[in-house]
């Protein structure tokens, strides 16, 4: 198989030889990747491959043993999360990514904590991008549906106008048509100029919309390439799906009944 050509755009995030883990469990065993400015890059891989750990390591939430993480040329290692946020890299964790006892508006304002000015302008922009948040602005975030929470979590992170948004499994636990909405928003955010680094389990959709994809396996880089092409790569199936890949085509012929028509608000 021919290696895809190297990416052209200037990198905004570069990770090289990253090793990290908890206690003495080494989850990441040397991961390298590049996110070009303004692009969408997705990391996929089986559960336990280290995807979420990678996201946490970038944000300083997991101890990095060796390797380097550079954002716009400067190392992020040893920085506090608030300092990382300040540099223009915001993070949306996979679960518990809103403050349930704060209202939607308070969540957004909290996201804008580091803004010195222009809070109102950003709020307007967020309400424009996520009209549902305007409707619900005085409700406690704990009462939102799963999809709405995900929207709020992204909006909260976008308050600071980051140049790179780090999303940890934005589709986790959401009904299929809500996943569509969330991914559509991700594309919209990207079109507005923000680079995206996304960790996903939902490989098909994520890769389909990505400029570049990386497959992690057992805490190491396994494969990478342009998203759609990676999805078509037979090696991905074997790595990512274990022995399951063979059923893929069959599944396309017989879509799951009702898969696309479930109500989003669960």
């Amino acid at each position: 198989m021919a290696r895809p050509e190297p990416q052209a755009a200037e990198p905004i995030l570069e990770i090289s030889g990253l090793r990290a883990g908890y206690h003495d469990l080494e989850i990441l065993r040397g991961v390298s990747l590049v996110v070009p400015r303004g692009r969408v890059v997705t990391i996929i891989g089986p559960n336990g491959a280290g995807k979420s750990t990678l996201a946490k390591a970038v944000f300083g939430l997991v101890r990095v043993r060796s390797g380097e993480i550079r954002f716009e040329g400067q190392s992020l290692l040893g920085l506090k999360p608030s300092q990382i946020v300040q540099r223009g890299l915001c993070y949306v964790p996979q679960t518990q990514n809103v403050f349930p006892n704060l209202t939607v508006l308070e969540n957004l304002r909290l996201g804008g904590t580091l803004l010195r000015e222009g809070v109102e302008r950003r709020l307007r922009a967020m309400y424009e991008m996520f009209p549902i948040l305007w409707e619900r602005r005085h409700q406690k975030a704990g009462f939102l549906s799963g999809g709405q929470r995900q929207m709020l979590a992204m909006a909260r992170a976008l308050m600071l106008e980051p140049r790179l948004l780090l999303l940890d499994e934005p589709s986790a636990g959401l009904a299929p048509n809500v996943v569509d909405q969330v991914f559509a928003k991700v594309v919209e955010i990207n079109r507005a100029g923000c680079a995206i680094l996304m960790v996903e389990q939902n490989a098909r959709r994520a890769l389909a919309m990505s400029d570049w994809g990386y497959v992690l396996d057992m805490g190491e880089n396994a494969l990478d390439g342009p998203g759609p092409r990676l999805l078509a790569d037979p090696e991905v199936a074997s790595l990512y799906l274990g022995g399951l890949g063979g059923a893929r085509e069959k599944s396309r012929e017989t879509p799951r009944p009702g898969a696309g028509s479930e109500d989003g608000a669960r």
Partner: protein
Amino acid sequence: MSAEGKESSEAEERALLRVREARKLFGGFAAVDGVSLDVREGEIVGLIGPNGAGKTTLFSLITLFLPLTSGAVYFRGQRIDGRPPYLPARLGLVRTFQITRVFARMTVLENLMFAAPGQPGESLAELALAPRRVRAHERRVRERADELLRYFNLERVRDQYAGTLSGGQRKLLEMARALMTEPKLMLLDEPMAGVNPTLKEELLGYVLDLRRQGMTFLVIEHDLDMIMRISDRVVAMAEGRVISEGPPEAVRQDPAVVDAYLGPGGQARAAPVDPGPPAGRALREEGRAHG
């Protein structure tokens, strides 16, 4: 696969563990939503499914860590749900944990000896009145523990605090400790998570070896290659339900399982970028080669 029909007809009477319509609600959310499954003596059953499918919750329900909202759990023909949580281990049903939970400030040997069942020395009366019996039993327990330490290659760390062990050693210790309870059925929760390839093979070897000695396993595992290699049967869960069940080959072929893992089919529907030409045939062949 010709024996499939016969197997299922015998399933009922030979089932060591039977779960019937197990349901668990957290608030309004059904983490486990009507799960039924059987584990027969001598089997290795793999339990797979994407994150949040409810696998670990199901383990907690089976071991009575959490009370069922509705449904029933039978072990060796006896209904156990609603009984005290220490009962399953006494009947021979023991679990390990996703993130290892060793007794950190006890030695490795103590960790093992603790788990032995029926120790007279665990009663103050026996300690006072029959110290000799206690000592004799302790000797037997220690011998068994030493045996397991040898088996799992942990002799070197026998007298160290368990908290000083490496991640891999903790996995082995947890398995050895569970074995001390003299179980019939072991529930392993992601035994391979965060484990390097060498140790993975080692753990796999232990599971297969123990099965040869008559142990039964129900294993949650994310490493699908691994689960396909060791399981006699695979149960796949998603969103709290069983979505597929059967021989590994059949579950692997099940589109519902593939959908659960990869995201629902028809990837072009919402995707703003052209997914490119499908490569189904190549994928399928590759997949088989790896199976």
